[in-house]
């Protein structure tokens, strides 16, 4: 039966008590940012090859099983392959020498340049996805919110509504796993009524998922409503007026980890 939560782990937090879990959230966000920048700067396979061991280390240290991450990225990977197929087939052929065409049919073609570009894009997107997923898997929502608020706090002087923006961002992320769970529940209930979600080919299954969209939206609005009321009744107001019960502390080893990541990225960029 549908256990959707296995296939989409985006936005989930998994506590394993590892070193990465204990690193100060601000440091983790900064390291994530460094790696995001890296994904734009690095533009050859060698650079990504240099980054790879770093990603493996992060994965191992976090104690989150690789199988769990891979299975939980199934939909993402399927989507990525779909996009890449388009990228390769519709690669604009302006500067492609005739010799590098492997196959051609009308506007569709497969060229070595196309494959190379698609490969780099794939690695970039995977890096982006991996790094943000790892941040969310290893950082609780409260830490993530506090970390982002502290990092962007200075912008408040420029009248940027930092707290509100962070809150919207974090709620958006947090709603993804809730929606996934809700979809699972809906699919189960509808299966009991005779919509066989666990039978049929890929297209029929996809079409049945469409049936869940309207109820999902309705429950989404209802949840947002409840959340608003809950926040109002507890007199939530963001910004300078709030004080934190738990203060964040970055230890020397946290800073060391951030420095290491930054240096690693610089090396990968330079090679």
């Amino acid at each position, binding site marked *: *039966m549908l*256990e959707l939560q*296995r296939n989409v782990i985006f936005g989930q937090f998994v506590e394993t008590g590892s070193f990465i879990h204990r690193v100060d959230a601000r440091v983790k966000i900064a390291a994530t940012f460094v790696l995001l920048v890296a994904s734009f700067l690095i533009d050859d396979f060698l650079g990504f090859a240099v980054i790879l061991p770093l990603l493996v280390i992060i994965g191992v240290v976090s104690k989150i099983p690789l199988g769990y991450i891979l299975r*939980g990225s199934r939909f993402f990977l399927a989507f990525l392959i779909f996009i890449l197929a388009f990228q390769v087939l519709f690669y604009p052929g302006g500067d492609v020498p005739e010799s590098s065409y492997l196959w051609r049919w009308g506007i569709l073609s497969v060229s070595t340049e196309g494959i190379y570009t698609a490969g780099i894009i794939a690695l970039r997107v995977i890096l982006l996805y991996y790094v943000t997923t790892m941040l969310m898997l290893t950082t609780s929502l409260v830490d993530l919110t506090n970390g982002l608020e502290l990092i962007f706090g200075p912008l408040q002087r420029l009248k940027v509504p930092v707290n509100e923006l962070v809150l919207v961002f974090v709620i958006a992320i947090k709603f993804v796993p809730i929606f996934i769970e809700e979809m699972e529940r809906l699919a*189960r*209930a*509808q299966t*009991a*009524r*005779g919509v066989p979600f666990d039978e049929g080919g890929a297209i029929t299954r996809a079409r049945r998922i469409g049936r869940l969209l309207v109820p999902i939206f309705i429950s989404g609005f209802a949840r947002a409503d409840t959340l608003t009321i809950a926040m109002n009744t507890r007199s939530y107001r963001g910004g300078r007026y709030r004080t934190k019960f738990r203060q964040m502390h970055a230890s020397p080893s946290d800073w060391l980890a951030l420095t290491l990541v930054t240096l690693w990225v610089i090396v990968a960029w330079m090679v």
Partner: protein
Amino acid sequence: MQSDGRSPVLELKDFSHTYLEGTPRASEAVRDVSFRIHHGERVGIVGATESGKSTVVDSFAHLLRPGPGQVFYEGEDVTAPGYNRGRLRREIGIVFQRPDSQIIEDVVGADVAFGPTAAGLSASETRERVEESLNTLELPYPDYRLRYIHALSGGQRRRVAIAGVLAMHTPVLVLDEPMAGLDPRGRKELLELLLTLQRERELTLIVCSASLTDASLLCDRFIVLDRGTVVMDGPVREVLREADRLSELDITLPEPVVGAREMQKLFPDFPTDVLTEDELEVELLERLATS
């Protein structure tokens, strides 16, 4: 209530289930649950929250990833490959805890018609079933047929969900917390309706609840779950006799039983297996007369 030597309607044999098994977020819901439910029985599956009631319900219609243990319907293992799950789901009607999750269409009539249509009934038969089910639940067919479900109240939506299941004419009817969110009158009406239906259609009725208030009037047997295992299984009165233990398990006791437990302070031998206030009164008068 062993009826006529037929195989049990439903049987769970060493059934265990862990959600998201093999992932870091795995959580065990039930462990080694075994019981049999026979034709025409009225069974209450009771337990506090997180005791595994809903997981057991889902297992009846094979809505979970297969795990250890077996589930039999009419003597056949439903987890076996090639088992006709479509037929199983047409014979076991489940009303879930939150009615919204099982509503498929936008309009009352269309939603109640969903099951019969999917089961391949003709248009006229389907119409008859829809009319009958809606009228039974006091949602008059002509008034409610074309109403939008999302514009209905919570109690009405629950009744639409029940109508959708009743329209299937399933021999087994399972209700997960059917009384939640209903006012006293609505609860009384639903209670009477379920009892009538059970009698008329000779249904096997299974009710899940954390409260014995209504379940004790509706069921003749309780299966008590605690943290995923069966801790008591027997006739209602037999289970109620262990009121102290039930209360320790965070199960809401029926009001007469609560009264009886108070009486035990005065009369230590006061029985707790009282189903109604009248029974409580009789017991009390008897003791007052002798003392």
